[in-house]
């Protein structure tokens, strides 16, 4: 069963609705004591990365999250929390991935926020994108991106530059897009995560 880590950043209605539609069981993690009862975790998050990191610190769950050995998926800002640093609020993050979250440079050609459906390319063999064709579209809405890094980038997307649409290190996964809003391929990804 998935434990959704609740630290006060963003709503999770759409995520739980998607899990309900897929018949994937989940519960809530509000404190360190709640971790044990789950076999995998999702770290959600929308809004300001620096503010989200502050809330996560106030929740008292940082040390526990950094020590997780079970499959863990960060979504959107929840993925950015896993990086070393974000330019949004010039904030230090969890540093589970020694790479950075940066802001897109906006222009009339490459507008920011990067909003809409863009193509995602798996960079390596992996179980998260099983049964999802390379180049499938997922729904993005974000102004900050995680830099591309061959060691950690699981899947990439191009938007003025090549960035990490997904990252992977050991048991930690992250996706910048919103699988809960990304049609059937998003649902496939959530199902894949639940079966890891």
């Amino acid at each position, binding site marked *: 069963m998935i434990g959704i880590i609740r630290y006060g950043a963003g709503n999770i209605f759409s995520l739980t609705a998607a899990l309900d539609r897929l018949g994937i069981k989940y519960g809530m993690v509000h404190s360190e004591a709640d971790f044990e009862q789950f076999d995998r975790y999702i770290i959600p998050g929308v809004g300001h990365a620096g503010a989200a990191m502050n809330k996560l610190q106030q929740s008292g769950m940082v040390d526990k999250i950094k020590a997780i050995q079970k499959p863990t998926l960060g979504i959107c800002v929840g993925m950015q929390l896993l990086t070393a640093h974000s330019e949004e609020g010039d904030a230090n993050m969890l540093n589970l991935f020694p790479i950075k979250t940066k802001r897109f440079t906006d222009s009339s050609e490459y507008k920011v*926020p990067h909003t809409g459906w863009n193509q995602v390319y798996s960079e390596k063999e992996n179980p998260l994108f099983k049964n999802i064709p390379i180049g499938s579209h997922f729904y993005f809405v974000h102004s900050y991106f995680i830099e591309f890094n061959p060691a950690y980038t699981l899947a990439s997307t191009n938007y003025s530059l090549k960035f990490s649409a997904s990252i992977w290190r050991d048991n930690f996964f992250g996706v910048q897009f919103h699988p809960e809003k990304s049609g059937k391929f998003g649902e496939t990804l959530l199902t894949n995560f639940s079966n890891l």
Partner: protein
Amino acid sequence: MSLAKRIIPCLDVKDGRTVKGVNFVDLRDAGDPVELAWNYSNQGADELVFLDITATHERRKTMVELVKAVARQINIPFTIGGGINEIADADALLNAGADKISINSAAVRNPALIDELAKAFGVQFVVVAVDTRHVDGKNIVHLNGGRIPTEKETFDWILEAEDRGAGEILLTSMDHDGTKGGFDNQFLKQVNDAVHIPVIASGGAGKVQDFVDVFEKANVDAALAASVFHYGEILIPDLKEVLKQNHIEIRNLS
């Protein structure tokens, strides 16, 4: 190899039912919003917009119920607009599962609302909807479904909205809306070239070629329409096929 252009059906909702008027009057009932939304999602719509035109004290409650019902069943993003006047309205809708909120008259009356919403929820949550109409050779912002002219020139207002923290602009040409004569490509291009946030074109869609034109001529990020979709005059799979034939980037469904 790039960001797909979005096709967005717009559902006007009153008291929980979908309506669409020709030039915003003569409302006709076009069905259950959740069922329509589900159908559009299955047909390949990329996003949905709900505009709530309910004008009762129960409004926020009915909007929250609608948003929850949609979020439970639909796996694509959606925006809700209509009667959002303060942070608490937006907060309730966000928590009910809305991806974005759209503000129109409230932002014109109180531009600082854009700043407040962007600060509270992030720019990606804030769509500023602008209804524009030509008056004496100028594009002027109108309120109340295009009935009330303001003092604001549309182009200037859009730049101000972007500056204040709008994450997207939904621009409706009231001169074109309901005419089915095509989008206002010239003005849309002018706006689209000037801003660095996504622009959704609205008003005037009547045939498939109108969508090809608005993407080719104005290069907007998305195109929105209501009645041509609601009454089956344009089917989204057919529309997407023609866009693809014209080398316009669209979302792969399989």
